[in-house]
């Protein structure tokens, strides 16, 4: 029984290895590829970049026929962890310097470039039922406020902004990401939340955004970098170039980002 078991246990990694080497030879071939041959580019990007990067990815595919851009959108910290655990990615775009630092510290990327900035706004449900018009209003205990948890970038930024403005807010909840925070606003469960300008724009007309001066103290930089072990090689740099180009800037600004 034990012998049979161990033989099966050996067979499984063998099959996996075969599958992996097959993939590798397809993606990272050194031979000059025929123009029509598909080449894959894998981009790990912060969830807040879902709209803009999808648009840029389409543009990239049009400009580079035969190229397929695949995105993995998610929490920047999670993506950084996946990269350090060996996930095969070509480009990493993070929603803050900290996750990028995780990757550069592991020597998996170098020379990240800031390609966009994001500024906090007060998000309120359509119609602004609690009549919030300034950051100081959030200190009112009758106003229910949602913030992102400090562990995620929007939360860290919110703390920074509130500190800078000298406003003490007791939130009812510390949400695990921007989407969850916005859901609470959209459903009217909270009267206000601090989220990024881009998130307010993405939420459409269910949410209204209110600017506030202290937001300038908590501007979030978005760095992008090609990864050292990028299977797609050159293509990765070309994608980064597109993001930094005037065309890329247009798309980002339209979505609520600011140019660096």
């Amino acid at each position, binding site marked *: 029984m034990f012998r049979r078991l161990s033989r099966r246990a050996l067979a499984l990694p063998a099959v996996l290895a075969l599958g992996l080497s097959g993939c590798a030879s397809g993606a990272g071939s050194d031979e000059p590829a025929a123009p029509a041959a598909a080449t894959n580019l894998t981009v790990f990007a912060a969830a807040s970049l879902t709209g803009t990067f999808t648009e840029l990815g389409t543009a990239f595919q049009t400009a580079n026929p035969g190229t397929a851009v695949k995105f993995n959108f998610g929490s920047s*910290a999670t993506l950084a962890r996946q990269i350090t655990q060996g996930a095969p990615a070509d480009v990493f775009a993070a929603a803050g310097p900290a996750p990028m630092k995780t990757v550069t510290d592991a020597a998996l990327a170098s020379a990240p470039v800031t390609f966009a900035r994001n500024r906090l706004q007060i998000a309120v449900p359509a119609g602004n039922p609690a009549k919030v018009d300034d950051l100081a209003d959030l200190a009112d205990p009758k106003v229910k406020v949602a913030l992102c*948890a400090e562990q995620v970038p929007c939360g860290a930024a919110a703390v920074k902004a509130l500190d800078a403005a000298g406003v003490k807010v007791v939130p*009812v*909840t*510390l949400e*695990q990401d921007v989407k969850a925070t916005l859901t609470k606003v959209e*459903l009217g469960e909270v009267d206000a939340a601090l989220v990024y300008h881009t998130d307010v724009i993405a939420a459409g007309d269910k949410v209204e955004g209110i600017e506030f001066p202290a937001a300038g103290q908590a501007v979030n930089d978005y760095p992008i970098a090609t990864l050292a072990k990028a299977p797609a090689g050159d293509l990765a740099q070309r994608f980064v170039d597109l993001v930094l180009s005037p065309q890329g800037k247009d798309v980002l600004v339209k979505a609520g980002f600011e140019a660096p």
Partner: protein
Amino acid sequence: MLVGPALLGLAFLVLPLAGLLVRAPWATLPARLAEPQVLEALRLSLLSATVATAGCLLLGVPLAWLLARVEFPGRRLVRALVTVPLVLPPVVGGVALLLVLGRRGLVGEWLAATFGVTLPFTTAGVIVAEAFVAMPFLVISVEGALRGADQRYEEAAATLGASRWTVFRRVTLPMIMPGVIAGAVLCWARALGEFGATITFAGNFPGTTRTMPLAVYLALETEPEAAIVLSLVLLAVSVVILASLRDRWVSTP
């Protein structure tokens, strides 16, 4: 023929646990455990899972009885509906709860206007979310026990003059007790590990709504080691409780 797959199955279930144990930061463990936030989250987790289980027992056992013992049109459909929280992604379950019990929800708006009660962002909200997700485990388990129980004992009790309620309380319930306990244990364990519906419906705030799974998830964002410690605490506590319950209640005499 059976032992091989059984061992593989066991390995599949246990190896991730071994991974946690191997990677646990044992040196800093005592210090991390002493953090008040950890104890607070643990206390909240145990409290809300226990109250949620009690609520599930109060509502779920009669529901299981209805499904198992009373013929009514659409019973199959109702039975299928009971399992909805099992297949619904918990986050969706949380949104659904907000739509019904939220401040502007179908029932929640009325609750807020009439009693001034709002559930989101309260410990009661955590309990509601956990009960919603965990109740099917109890109902299915108890219904199975009811279907397996010999109904002739209930008839015997009726001939002795016992009303439906007395039959249930003094005959049915004691006879299906192992099934009820097993269901309650499953329900409690599910409630203890609940994350998605809780964070969506009740939010996340230390002391009121941040249960252990939420603390684990947030710790994972910045401090994976802390997340491992929290997970181990949750595991250890639940294993101890479940093992002692199993010895006392679930084992066959």
